[in-house]
């Protein structure tokens, strides 16, 4: 099915199941420890071996030699496969750095060996016995230093690095009120709870892999390329994923090492990346330096807006696209954006939740707060004044649906925005209290997505798709979609995900998963409905699927009876026309935060949080809300603690574990409130839904920064806003 014209009324609009607050159908499995993650698949008939990886201890250069004699002689060791012994391997299309094979070291903790032993303890001990001789080369590791040598990168997913409309320089120079500030965001880590892990097993030339992947088909294709085998020979499974946040979008070394180790030993091999290896071995969100210039007339109308961003990556990598939202978020006749990319020899930079927008809004939404203050306007009023219903760079291109203003207004009312005082003016005991706001904005992307739906003679509907559930609730919303389409209860639907034997889906990323994957299920269900109607001799135009029955005119048949002995199958892939080109499709939000800043220590505590989101139809308000509060939590981390510390001499991230890379814990997070505006977007899909998983993160950190300013009068433009950056300028303690 191709979605080419705006959705009309369809069975989803009945909202008997879709849109209802249905608890996760995999909730009992997860809360009882029965959900099986990658490393946990256990067949008592198989004799598993354990692979333990070793990472490079230099950032750039070559391996001269590796002495593995002691490791090979260690108790229980079956094989030591090194990056030298395996020779050059292919590199996945979506990988920037190679994952294994050959003597070249492209980044610190790049995998250089895997030791296979009978037990985990034996493999780990033996890995420490490998001696490596390197020929180290100097590298570039400091973005601030490399900024001057940054170049204009190639297009990112079709978007050019630079855009310009009107005369930015002239308008900015002539503006009655203007601001020009620079902001920085540090390198950040996904730090999902489940480390990357795989089990690999060969039968002849056929490879079975249990792994932890957001995108089954991307991994399968890139694993085939890396190993130089036919993709069809790989069976990949990832039914439960312990978090990803972008860190499991692309094939990682655990799958490659497990496959190679299994080949070398003839045994099924389990490989998990040890937590301290994970940060430098895998990917991270690159640091940015962002300059924002805004000019406005005295009434507060933006006349010039410019956003430039510098980031770094390995050769062949891409920029952190931090200027993207500035192309679309606010009006203004004269505009420019530009991205520059420096070559850095740090580990691979790549997508982390809301790539581009998250760090971009961390800067832009402070700038908007600063500009509003210069203009003497309330920051909400300033945003509303400069709202746009069209793509400001291409005014002939409208938004499909945009209610940012509604989010801001409702949020202001619910949060008590009118009680906000001037900076530094509200004190409770030793705490300075402040309120902050920021806009949330993230585009709605759509991806082709396939599914197969089987109707059994027991009336049960089973959905098969290689879609993944990374905690987002895919199992549940897919069950809701199939239930609504086939007119059955959710408990009459079985959902089977994350298996390469199933149709290729959108996968989980870019907040495109929920809308795209349920649309794929919709398309497959349309096929199944047609098959049911045909078998019953019903006219498919007036057939109704309801309460486990199929009705046409005055005839009614139980759905189970229609299945026949062998059952019926519907399979299809949702494809997309040009509605995302003709109309800008985006999601919108308003984040409100109250913080307290300790007068004596400068410590910030988040006291209240509210997000108001406009993201089309909400398929399940429970799982959608959890997505948003989780993103708000991550936003607290990015605002206040999270920073990968770069050793600019040796070229690696120093704080590469969960103790030293500080993510939010229970004590950091207050009660969080989320409101979804009741809306649909017929331009987005037959589901009329959009994504929320990344929207929830977009703008939160800036709202916290703005709240800290409102509490203290201290403006910090370098994240994270740790107490050392605040304490020096705090008012005198009375």
């Amino acid at each position: 099915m191709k979605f080419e014209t705006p959705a009309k009324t369809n069975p989803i609009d009945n909202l008997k199941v879709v849109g209802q607050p249905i608890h996760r159908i995999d909730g009992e499995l997860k809360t009882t420890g029965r959900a099986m993650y990658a490393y946990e698949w256990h067949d008592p008939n198989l004799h598993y071996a354990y692979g333990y990886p070793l990472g490079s201890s230099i950032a750039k250069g070559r391996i001269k030699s590796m002495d593995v004699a002691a490791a090979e002689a260690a108790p229980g060791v079956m094989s030591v496969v090194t990056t030298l012994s395996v020779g050059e391997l292919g590199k996945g299309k979506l990988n920037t750095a190679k994952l294994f094979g050959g003597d070249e070291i492209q980044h610190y903790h790049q995998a250089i060996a895997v030791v296979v032993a009978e037990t985990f303890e034996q493999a780990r001990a033996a890995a420490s016995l490998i001696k490596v001789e390197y020929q180290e080369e100097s590298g570039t590791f400091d973005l601030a230093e490399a900024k001057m040598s940054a170049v204009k990168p190639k297009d990112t997913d079709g978007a050019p690095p630079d855009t310009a409309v009107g005369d930015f320089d002239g308008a900015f120079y002539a503006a009655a009120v203007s601001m020009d500030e620079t902001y920085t965001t540090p390198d950040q880590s996904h730090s999902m709870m489940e480390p990357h892990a795989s089990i690999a097993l060969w039968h002849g030339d056929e490879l079975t892999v249990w792994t932890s992947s957001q995108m089954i088909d991307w991994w399968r294709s890139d694993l085939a390329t890396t190993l130089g085998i036919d993709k069809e020979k790989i069976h990949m499974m990832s039914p439960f994923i312990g978090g990803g946040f972008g860190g499991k979008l692309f094939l990682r070394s655990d799958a490659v090492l497990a496959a190679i180790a299994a080949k070398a030993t003839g045994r099924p091999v389990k490989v998990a990346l040890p937590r301290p290896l994970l940060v430098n071995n895998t990917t991270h969100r690159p640091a940015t330096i962002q300059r924002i210039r805004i000019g406005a007339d005295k009434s507060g109308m933006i006349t010039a807006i410019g956003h430039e961003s510098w980031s770094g990556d390995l050769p062949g990598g891409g920029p952190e696209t931090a200027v993207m939202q500035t192309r679309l978020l606010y009006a203004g006749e004269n505009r420019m954006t530009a991205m520059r990319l420096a070559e850095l020899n740090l580990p691979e930079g790549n997508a982390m939740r809301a790539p581009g927008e998250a760090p971009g809004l961390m800067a832009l939404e402070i700038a908007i707060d600063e500009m509003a203050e210069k203009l003497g306007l309330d920051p909400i009023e300033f945003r509303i004044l400069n709202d746009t219903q069209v793509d400001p760079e291409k005014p002939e291109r409208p938004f499909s649906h945009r209610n940012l203003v509604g989010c801001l207004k409702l949020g202001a009312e619910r949060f008590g925005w009118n009680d906000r005082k001037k900076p530094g003016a509200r004190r409770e005991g030793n705490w300075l209290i402040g309120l902050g706001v920021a806009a949330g904005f993230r585009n709605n992307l759509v991806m082709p997505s396939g599914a197969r739906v089987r109707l059994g003679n027991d009336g049960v509907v089973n959905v098969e798709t290689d879609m993944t559930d990374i905690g987002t609730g895919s199992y549940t919303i897919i069950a809701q979609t199939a239930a609504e389409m086939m007119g059955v209860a959710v408990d009459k639907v079985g959902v089977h995900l994350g298996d390469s034997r199933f149709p290729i889906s959108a996968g989980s990323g870019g907040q495109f998963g929920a809308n795209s994957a349920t649309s794929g299920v919709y398309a497959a269900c349309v096929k199944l409905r047609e098959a049911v109607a045909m078998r019953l001799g019903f006219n498919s135009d007036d057939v109704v699927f309801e309460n486990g029955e199929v009705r046409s005119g005055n005839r009614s048949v139980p759905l189970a009876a229609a299945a026949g002995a062998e059952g019926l199958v519907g399979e299809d892939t949702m494809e997309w026309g040009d509605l995302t080109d003709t109309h800008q499709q985006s999601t919108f939000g308003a984040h409100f935060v109250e913080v307290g800043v300790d007068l004596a220590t400068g410590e910030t505590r988040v006291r209240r949080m509210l997000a108001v989101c406009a993201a089309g139809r909400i398929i399940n308000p429970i799982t959608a809300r959890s997505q948003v509060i989780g993103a708000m939590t991550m936003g607290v981390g990015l605002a206040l603690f999270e920073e990968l510390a770069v050793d600019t001499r040796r070229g690696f991230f120093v704080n590469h574990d969960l103790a030293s890379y500080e993510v939010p814990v229970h004590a950091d997070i207050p009660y969080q409130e989320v409101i979804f505006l009741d809306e649909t977007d017929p331009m987005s899909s037959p589901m009329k839904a959009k994504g929320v998983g990344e929207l929830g993160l977009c703008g939160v950190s800036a709202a916290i920064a703005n709240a800290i300013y409102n509490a203290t009068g201290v403006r910090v433009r370098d994240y994270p806003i740790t107490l050392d950056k605040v304490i020096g300028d705090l008012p005198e303690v009375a």
Partner: protein
Amino acid sequence: MTYASTVSMKVNGERRDLEVDNRTSLLDALREHLHLTGTKKGCDHGQCGACTVLVNGVRINSCLTLAVMHDGDEVTTIEGLGQPDNLHPMQAAFVKHDGFQCGYCTPGQICSSVAVLEEIKANLPSHVTVSLTERTRISEAEIRERMSGNICRCGAYSNIVEAIVEAAGTRA
């Protein structure tokens, strides 16, 4: 297996005899030897709490203790708290309040929650306990403080606290 020992533990009420490498953590004994994979390995360094289990009723990070140190001990894992269709009240409260997303930290969160309520009942003070001379009471602040060793990167904290408050049967 030169450096191996035998150890006998009662796991979820059942006696289990194991021969383990002396270096085997309690976590790996549960996961790799007994195939009780509900207990999760997030960091293997005591930094995340995903491996939390109850040993003789007290919560510990099972990655930070060796299996051979637990001869004769009673270990309760997430599988021992409740099963699908027969959930422990804390498990049911987590489902009701959607106190998880990816589910990987969840067994540790639930084991920790069960122990936290016992710790408060036993009047053990925490960093946020206001007075050491008065009885410790269940509150959201106490729960947040005591649960802070269990990281949830999906960020379900707000829902987890609601689940624990409900399971405690107390309006905090």
